[in-house]
């Protein structure tokens, strides 16, 4: 058993009394005061998240765009410098190596934010398919990442930076400063609220964390753990690798057709995806809400007309909607919104219904 990996904020979490858990090999805070409390803070005020466990890769070279476009589903040629998009890192099978955020830093430089537990695999995947003479670098160990999320996030972060945050559009980023130290400030997030994700040097992380907590005090900012991060992303209808998507699932099955740009030309998995698009998917990701008493959880069976038909990928209580919600896979012909299904909870079928996603959408 190897030792758990720690972010530069590990001591800060412990000082705040966080409950720490092993999250994919990382010693991470699951909660400070309580998941519901933290969740509500993000929806109504703001939350501060240590997401330094996330990985970052850089692709550099005259053909950087070609490599990025060859291994991912979205069309990075559409990105302007300073723009970000969500994309799928693909196998030849048309299934996910990972889901990632692609930032265009310059014509010859792309910065990718990837999942913590996939970063080594993702790096190897880029290297394996690098017939474009690019330099691929794993920046993970050189960066800490802090997310400030919620309606008050912009006001809080603006107190610490001269970079005009209101000029950074949603899913754009700027290389600026926070507290006078270099920071990549991205107007992105994983909570369904407005907010920013900042990439900074690890030795700056604890100072920025504490400054942000202090700056946010008057706004009701709370430190938030991975527990709230999960309930927030679930409500917002966002996929989590290892649950809604993995190496056996295609983006079309996962309702992520919008990140699959077949018109851009050949890329890893494009033949499979082209065929699947033409023929239609056999199974499909659905959102559900429990109608009977019980909570559908990851791995639970879904029944339709009394027969096993699919499985739950993520599920739990929605603190904002005060209902029990979840994602799952069903055969495409049974995946219509409104369909009555059952989720098997403790060997008993509990009534549920297929409902539209996202479950929660913030007021603009």
């Amino acid at each position, binding site marked *: 058993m190897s030792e758990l990996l720690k972010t530069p904020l590990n001591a800060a979490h412990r000082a705040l009394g966080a*409950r720490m858990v092993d999250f994919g090999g990382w010693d991470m805070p*699951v*909660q400070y005061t*309580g*998941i*519901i*409390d933290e969740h509500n803070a993000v929806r109504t005020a703001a939350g501060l998240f240590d997401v330094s466990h996330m990985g970052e890769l850089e692709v550099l070279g005259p053909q950087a765009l070609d490599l990025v476009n060859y291994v991912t589903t979205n069309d990075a040629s559409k990105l302007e410098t300073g723009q970000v998009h969500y994309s799928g890192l693909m196998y030849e099978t048309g299934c996910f190596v990972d889901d990632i955020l692609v930032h265009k830093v310059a014509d010859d430089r792309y910065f990718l934010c990837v999942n913590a537990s996939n970063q080594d695999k993702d790096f190897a995947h880029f290297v394996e398919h690098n017939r474009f003479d690019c330099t691929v670098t794993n920046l993970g160990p050189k960066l800490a990442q802090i997310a400030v999320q919620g309606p008050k996030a912009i006001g809080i972060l603006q107190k610490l930076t001269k970079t005009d945050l209101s000029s950074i559009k949603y899913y754009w980023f700027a290389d600026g400063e926070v507290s006078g130290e270099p920071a990549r400030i991205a107007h992105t997030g994983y909570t369904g609220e407005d907010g920013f994700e900042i990439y900074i040097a690890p030795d700056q992380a604890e100072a920025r964390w504490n400054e942000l907590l202090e700056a946010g005090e008057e706004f009701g900012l709370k430190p938030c753990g991975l*527990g709230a991060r*999960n*309930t927030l992303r679930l409500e917002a209808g966002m996929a989590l690798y290892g649950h809604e998507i993995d190496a056996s699932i295609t983006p079309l099955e996962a309702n992520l057709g919008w990140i699959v740009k077949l018109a851009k030309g050949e890329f890893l998995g494009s033949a499979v995806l082209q065929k699947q698009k033409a023929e239609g998917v056999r199974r499909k990701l659905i959102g559900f809400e429990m109608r009977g*008493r*019980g*909570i559908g*959880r990851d791995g639970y069976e879904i029944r339709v007309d009394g027969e096993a038909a699919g499985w739950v990928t993520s599920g*739990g*209580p929605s*603190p904002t909607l005060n209902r*029990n919600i979840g994602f799952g896979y069903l055969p495409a012909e049974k995946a219509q919104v409104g369909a009555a299904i059952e989720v098997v909870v*403790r060997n008993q079928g509990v009534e549920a219904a297929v409902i539209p996603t996202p479950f929660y959408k913030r007021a603009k």
Partner: protein
Amino acid sequence: MSDYPENYRYTKEHEWVAVDGDTATVGITFHAQKELGDIVYVDLPRAGTRVEAGKSLGSVESVKAVSEIYSPVTGEVVEINADLADGPEKLNEDPHGTAWLVKIRLADMGEVETLLTLEDYQAYIEG
């Protein structure tokens, strides 16, 4: 709120038992609710169900996970705490009092004596 009554008996699975005549009231401990976090759902057997010491009595769910509750004693469930269906969060607020789970008519009065005393339990959780 975190006071552990001295006259209760406890288990290593973090349940408590309070005996009154031939009936045992069963709940989960302050330590248990703290470990679980925000409790959002409680599943209990119907009154009349026979339960056995060490076997499942139901489950408690927090935002993140499901936890099995094991019956500390053998007997028949005579009453369940109906307030918990609509107010599971009471288990976080008053686990040793109003948020009891079930009352069980004991099959063997002596069984309770085999459970942990407060002193044993505190030593166990501080272990």
